[in-house]
């Protein structure tokens, strides 16, 4: 009996020694694996959001208004497990752990100035920064935030809330003239360089995955994905 007790003690000690290696490894494997999984999901949701935005922005026959809660739920459902929402009656959940930010970025050219500076001044065209303040600038033409927009912010900049209309669009005048509406981190090596009067649709998603970050293995437990179409 005495020897058996000692044997059990040995086993325990051996197990403890092994676990001192295994436990951190399992924790790391769990955290990295889960983060990888969430990263893949965030990437997919971000891509889905980009596809929806393409439909919403380029095909009015789609009748897809992403400012509507029922349409936003498509993305929230795709983000199940990311704690983006907790209450179907309160979508998007302001206390959620994720957000999808949709933007249309326009490189302002003659078309935008013609549409936004009305009536055209006598010296236009040609358009320039003097008669069209945002000429040759990257500006926002659309912004929709789905999820907890107070937790994260777009990496390409933000239009002033006051100029974003309820359906996410921004007026032609603000596109052409409002200097606070610039996507300051988009062009000139930031994301992509556009031609005048062309645009890019940008879908970004953040997810806070700190709840799977065992032993604080990840220094910044935030998963981010961006799709530029």
């Amino acid at each position, binding site marked *: 009996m005495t020897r058996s007790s000692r044997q059990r003690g040995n086993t325990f000690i051996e197990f403890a020694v092994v676990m001192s290696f295994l436990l951190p490894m399992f924790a790391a494997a769990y955290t990295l694996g889960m983060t990888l999984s969430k990263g893949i999901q965030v990437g997919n949701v971000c891509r889905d959001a980009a596809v929806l935005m393409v439909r919403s922005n380029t095909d009015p026959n789609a009748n897809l208004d992403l400012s509507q809660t029922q349409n936003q739920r498509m993305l929230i459902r795709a983000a199940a497990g990311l704690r983006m929402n907790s209450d179907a009656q309160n979508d998007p959940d302001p206390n959620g752990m994720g957000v999808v930010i949709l933007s249309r970025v326009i490189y302002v050219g003659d078309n935008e100035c013609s549409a936004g500076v009305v009536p055209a001044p006598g010296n236009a065209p040609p358009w320039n920064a003097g008669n069209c303040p945002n000429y040759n600038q990257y500006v926002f033409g659309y912004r929709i935030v789905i999820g907890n927009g107070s937790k994260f912010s777009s990496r390409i900049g933000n239009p002033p809330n006051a100029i974003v209309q309820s359906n996410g669009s921004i007026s032609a005048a603000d596109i052409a003239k409002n200097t606070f509406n610039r996507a300051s981190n988009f062009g000139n090596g930031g994301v992509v360089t556009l031609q005048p*009067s*062309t645009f890019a649709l940008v879908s970004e998603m953040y997810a806070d995955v700190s709840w799977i970050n065992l032993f604080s293995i990840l220094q910044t437990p935030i998963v981010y994905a961006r799709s530029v179409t």
Partner: protein
Amino acid sequence: MLPSSSKKRERGFALIVNAAMLVFTVAAVGLALDVGSIYMIKGRLSAAVDAAALAAGRSVNLANTVQAAQTAATNMANQFFSANFPAGYLGTTGSPTVNPTFEQEVDGSGNPDGILNITVAASVNAPTYFMNIFGVRSIPVSATGTATRRGLVMLLVLDESSSMNTATVPSACQAMVSAARNFITKFSPYDRIGMVKFDMTAHLAYTPSTSYGDGSLDTAIANITCGGNTNTTSALEMAYRQIQAQNLPLAQNTIILFTDGSPNGISCDFPLRKQVDTRWGPAVTNPVAPNQPGGSLWNQPYSPNGCPSSNGGNNGACVNMPATCPANGAAVRGTLAQGSNQNSYGGSINGLYQPMDSDPSVVLPVGCGYQDSNTRQMIAYIPDQDIYGNSTHGVAATGNGPTVAGGLVTRDTWLYQTINLCSSDPNVQPSCKNVGDFWNNHGTIGSVSNKFTAGPYNGFFRPDQPNTIVAVSMNTAMAEANRIRGNATYHIKINAIYLTGNGTDAVDREFLPIIANFPTIPALPYDPVTYQAYVNPAFQQNQEQGQYLVTADRNQLNALFSQLASEVLRLSH
């Protein structure tokens, strides 16, 4: 009780077993992480090629030849690919450049259907971290993305009527030409663009072609000179036929209608007059001028006491016109147009003209005793259908509104030259315009009806009143647009730009929003700020909804055309 040697052997056994298991555990975890990493790279790569394909599709309008457009699109595709899949992403090697392929889609019979497929493929080598131990240093990962771009078949329908010849330089005609020339530079060599210009006749000035960017369409637009009347219905019909001839049902089939006012040309098989009736005719003595604010009957008098027996002359007015055409006179096909003003009585009437320049010349009846130009005498009445099958009474109403009657949105009882509205905006010139009203609210003006109220043609539209020509032309144009948009094969969208400032003709608040199937009736430049837009009473939920842009300032035309270009481009991918 175990022997002492056995106990010693047992010591460390768990450690050995766990260490042995650790090898497999680490390998399994490592494999999972490697595969997860590869899966993540694959997902990102797929998103990147999708984005690159979309960017390429959107960028084929950046040049005016196919080769240059493909080069521009390839450059943009690479930019968007890099933005989504940065070089070295998660340790990948072999960062690719992408080369989109462009292929016109065909239907089951091998005919193009209007869709351009853009395919982008890319591959990279994904690194391994644990499998590397077993000599697998990288795994190739590839993805292919395809985007479809709806081709564009677009007909510019440009008003070259005389009212565009405003005196100030640039004239409205020049401003339209300049704006349209700039407009066509914004599209792709994959798009097919054509042009119809119209006065009292619709002219096919440029057959839709992908070669428009070689300067030929630009020249055709630059050669526009303005004069004549406004046969909007025939112009829309001509554009419609051109779209059908292109036969690209999946393309974005679009008409861009520019006009500066109300239509005033009606194309019918007109029955010839064979009986005495109550129309306006040549003058007799002791006249009384008809009541028309600001109007005159060629400065000639009017008599309610009957007409002379002779039909000579084209001046003056009377009633009870004698009949001179044989009783078996047939109908004559052509376009009847308003003369100089939108008079509410027997002002000048022009025609008959060819509805389209491809139509046979108009053959006027022989032996009827009418002067060739005196069509207001020759034609019995305006029939209930035009030559395209459109009702001359308007378009089906889908809601309520001030001009809805008998299930139609109609101008049957409309008087144009009344209800003057003025704008306080100095950019609106002229600052005031008539917007019209129901004629029975103005019982002392003109004949008080667009229809004969007595005589053998009682109840039919009068061919001798300019106001009626406009009313009927507007009715058929609205019906024509509705018929075009209702084509379930081509899903045609009509966008409209309205320049209100020219001439003295009245403006109409509903006409072009209905043509474009715009959901509401917005304010005219002359409406007060308190004006409340109302629902388009002829809005068709299941038809394409076009843009409607209005200005009173010809200097804004370039801006409006550009705005429309942005809209069309936004939809063309």
